[in-house]
């Protein structure tokens, strides 16, 4: 049984991080040069940690499966990044960001981690502005803010609808500087295929070169995984097609616990599915809910009517009706479920009936009138107001409206968008302590790949915050605590038996897959897995469904390993093989997710068990029996994993019914 010591510092919540930083062991500069850290991944967490550690003087190797570190999927985040700057003078504070995040996560995150996140959020904005991230500005040259779900203050910093891109390019520029200076060695197009554990500690990785098929060994004093989330287990999601769980899964099989795998975020505003060929779902940023109003027809009979033909009095602005104090800015899990309920009632719109409207008509009118007043125009025509209003909306959300147009061939200026929830983020991940170290000493996990900060639901604009917090401001301190205890120069050689065994393990897996030569392409299995996961472990889960899901996934796994067809050779660039290796891991992860959802007999955040709900359909949490982290421990192939528990002790906040009404 794994030991799960969260290592949360003692003392008052607000002092924990400061105290920890002064208590933590340091590595002297001459010794830093002797330690080699391998960072896997170069998204926000990976790139920022690699650069920060290199600047501190460590030897760093950064490994990515992409052709360039700038491709990591952090790049696709649209809306923004939260920080408790209180530049708007609207009552924000570190405590309030902490509290919103804890509440937003439905009281399933660690208080100490979340408070630290809120504390360093202000440093992130400073750091990124200094790096040249072109944040939106007001006319006076100061930083602009907007609102996001689950908050009643404006604390979100943004760069048009491309905040993730700009932040990632900022982190990438730091990483590039280090590569140029020779302080980071960059290895591209290499997928981490195994973790090497020597004497119980993580001391290296095995990678597969995706161009040549060659297996490479990297020995390290510590390994950092910043490999992102696993939402592609659902096949259809807003993730990039390449996003995968393989690095985390390999670590899991080497002893790292996988925490709360069933905590999945379903984002309410995505473009609905249109066909079986579809490879990906596209997000429409949450920032749209600043101005867009979400509705469905009041009457089932109206669902096939053109939206313009449905009278105002026949529209149900259901988020405003059910959650009057947060309205359209209700958190993602709450908004998603509400949309699902409307569609389940038969009031969904669009060809499939799985859609709700996101309407900008009111915002266009409001902005149009404001713009006319600012320009001192009196008695303006309705057409002019419309023109000015559309221009104002375009300035805020133009690129999102363009994306919508490209995909649907419809103009959201002229008619409401149709949206539906889709898989977007995974709060679960490898278990880490307060130092972001897993239960395998020497293995650190950062960003979306770990489980620590978002509980059962993540608030919008908090993923970017966490990635950069972990990489720029947490790991540079906490990795020292581990490395200070490692004798400089004690790094095991890559020639050791453990490396050879791990490499042989990968080789065996590759050979096995190539040898099957069955009938079905890899995509066949990924689609099937996605359907099982969406139906049984998606927005609404039941005991029966989850049990069925486990049976179906086990059957799918068997079929995959006897009937998949991976053409080509393993000795060169082979995308079918890449996919097969990833889908093999997704299938196993899917089973673990169902198991986790099955054993968590409560509803919280993104995890909704139909058996546990209030009369109004809200989550019914069970704080007596489930106020804990479930950290699953691998017990061997085809054996049921062990469910370890880390109790969540709330010292400051009182766990209460989460209400946005």
């Amino acid at each position, binding site marked *: 049984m794994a030991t799960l010591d969260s290592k949360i510092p003692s003392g008052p919540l607000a002092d924990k991080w400061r105290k920890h930083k002064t208590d933590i062991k340091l590595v002297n500069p001459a010794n830093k040069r002797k330690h080699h850290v391998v960072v896997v991944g170069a998204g926000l967490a990976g790139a920022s940690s690699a650069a920060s550690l290199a600047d501190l003087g460590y030897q760093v190797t950064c490994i990515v499966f*992409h052709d360039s570190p700038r491709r990591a999927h952090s790049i696709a985040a649209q809306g923004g990044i939260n920080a408790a700057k209180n530049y708007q003078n609207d009552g924000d504070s570190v405590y309030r960001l902490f509290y919103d995040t804890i509440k937003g996560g439905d009281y399933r995150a660690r208080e100490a981690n979340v408070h630290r996140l809120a504390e360093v959020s202000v440093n992130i904005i400073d750091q990124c502005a200094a790096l040249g991230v072109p944040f939106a500005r007001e*006319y006076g040259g100061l*930083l602009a803010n907007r609102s996001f779900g689950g908050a009643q203050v404006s604390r979100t910093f943004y760069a048009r609808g491309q905040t993730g891109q700009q932040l990632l390019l900022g982190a990438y520029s730091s990483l590039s500087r280090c590569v140029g200076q020779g302080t980071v060695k960059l290895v591209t197009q290499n997928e981490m295929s195994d973790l090497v554990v020597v004497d119980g500690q993580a001391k290296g990785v095995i990678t597969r070169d995706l161009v040549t098929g060659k297996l490479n060994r990297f020995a390290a004093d510590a390994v950092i995984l910043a490999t992102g989330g696993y939402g592609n287990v659902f096949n259809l999601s807003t993730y990039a097609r390449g996003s995968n769980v393989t690095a985390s899964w390999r670590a899991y099989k080497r002893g790292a616990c996988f925490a709360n795998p069933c905590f999945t975020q379903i984002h309410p505003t995505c473009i609905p599915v249109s066909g079986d060929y579809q490879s990906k779902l596209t997000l429409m940023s949450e920032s749209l809910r600043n101005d867009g109003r979400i509705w469905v027809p009041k009457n089932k009979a109206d669902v096939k009517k053109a939206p313009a033909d449905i009278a105002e009095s026949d529209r149900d602005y259901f988020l405003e009706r059910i959650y009057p104090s947060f309205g359209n800015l209700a958190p993602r899990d709450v908004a998603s479920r509400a949309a699902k309920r409307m569609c389940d009632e038969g009031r969904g719109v669009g060809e499939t009936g799985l859609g709700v409207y996101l309407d900008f008509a009111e915002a266009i009118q409001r902005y149009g009138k404001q713009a006319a007043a600012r320009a001192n125009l009196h008695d303006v025509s309705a057409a002019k107001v419309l023109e000015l209003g559309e221009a104002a909306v375009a300035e805020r959300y133009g690129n999102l409206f363009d994306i919508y147009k490209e995909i649907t061939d419809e103009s959201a200026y002229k008619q409401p968008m149709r949206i539906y929830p889709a898989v977007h983020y995974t709060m679960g991940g490898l278990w880490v302590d307060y130092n972001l170290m897993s239960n395998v000493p020497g293995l650190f996990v950062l960003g979306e790949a770990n489980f620590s900060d978002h509980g059962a639901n993540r608030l919008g604009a908090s993923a970017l915050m966490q990635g950069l917090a972990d990489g720029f401001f947490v790991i540079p301190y906490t990795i020292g605590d581990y490395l200070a205890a490692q004798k400089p120069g004690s790094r095991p050689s890559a020639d050791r038996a453990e490396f050879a065994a791990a490499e042989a393990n990968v080789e065996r897996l590759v050979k096995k897959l190539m040898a099957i030569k069955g009938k079905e392409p890899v995509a066949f299995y990924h689609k099937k897995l996605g359907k099982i996961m969406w139906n049984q472990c998606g927005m609404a889960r039941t005991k029966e469904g989850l049990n069925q899901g486990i049976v179906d996934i086990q059957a799918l796994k068997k079929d995959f390993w006897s009937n998949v067809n991976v053409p080509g050779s393993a000795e060169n660039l082979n995308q079918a093989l890449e996919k097969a290796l990833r889908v093999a891991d997704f299938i196993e992860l899917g089973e673990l997710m169902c198991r986790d959802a099955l054993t968590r007999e409560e509803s919280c955040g993104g995890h909704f068990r139909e058996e546990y709900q209030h009369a109004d359909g809200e989550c019914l949490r069970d704080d007596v029996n489930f106020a804990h982290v479930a950290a699953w421990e691998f017990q061997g192939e085809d054996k049921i994993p062990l469910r370890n528990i880390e109790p969540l002790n709330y010292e400051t906040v009182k766990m209460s019914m989460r209400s946005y009404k």
Partner: protein
Amino acid sequence: MVAHLTSAKNLSVTLRVWRQPSTDEPGRFVDYAAKDLNPNMSFLEMLDVVNYGLEAKGEDPIAFAHDCREGICGTCSLVINGKPHGPHKGVATCQTYMRSFADGDVIVVEPFRAKPFPILKDLICNRSAFDAIQQAGGFITVRAGSACDANAIPVPKDGADLAMDAAQCIGCGACVAACKNASAMLFVSAKVGHLGLLPQGQAERDSRVLNMVAKMDELGFGNCTNQYECSAACPKLISQDFIARMNRDYIAASFRQAFKPKSNASSGGA
């Protein structure tokens, strides 16, 4: 969860695809029939469907680069009917939909072609030369923890907006693929422009432009002859004006470099 759109008629096309097993082996065009396609499919989803068929037959699927499929990661490439990122302005290949093509079309699909972008396989080329240019100077040096308060440096909105226009570059390489000289001027000038327009970027402004341009030349990218095909092919419509801006920066920096007084400062101390 899935239902077919019934409103539009399906189409069939012939793909003429560049197949090349590896960098050192010769390539050739191979025709594939892509039948009964939903016009709402993206171009890459159409390739998925073709590959599904190939894989089911045990044939090597067409290798193509892709990832985010929403036009922001810069991984997808492809020259479609002679145009990088296909027929439409201001979008990447992944945002190109089959409704842009007609039933019966022959569609020629090639990789980005440029000497500094060697082909790895089929439609995938190696664009790491772009990373090398960034590493030469595409940054502002700030160690974590050393930044001042973000609002301590006001940035006028128009400058910030212009910087953002340049910063949108997704690093896809379409500008190079579109240029008859395989010039990387638009790519380099976007980064030089982005950082040079901000007050934070001034300290390293000269060294940045000199080092990035030197690296670009060293890697074998061609010169700019002001045809602006780069801008026309850019999925983010980055303006060629940034090239003019970079040329001014480069000349000014070269002069300053030539006449720069040399400091005697050394970093030693007590």
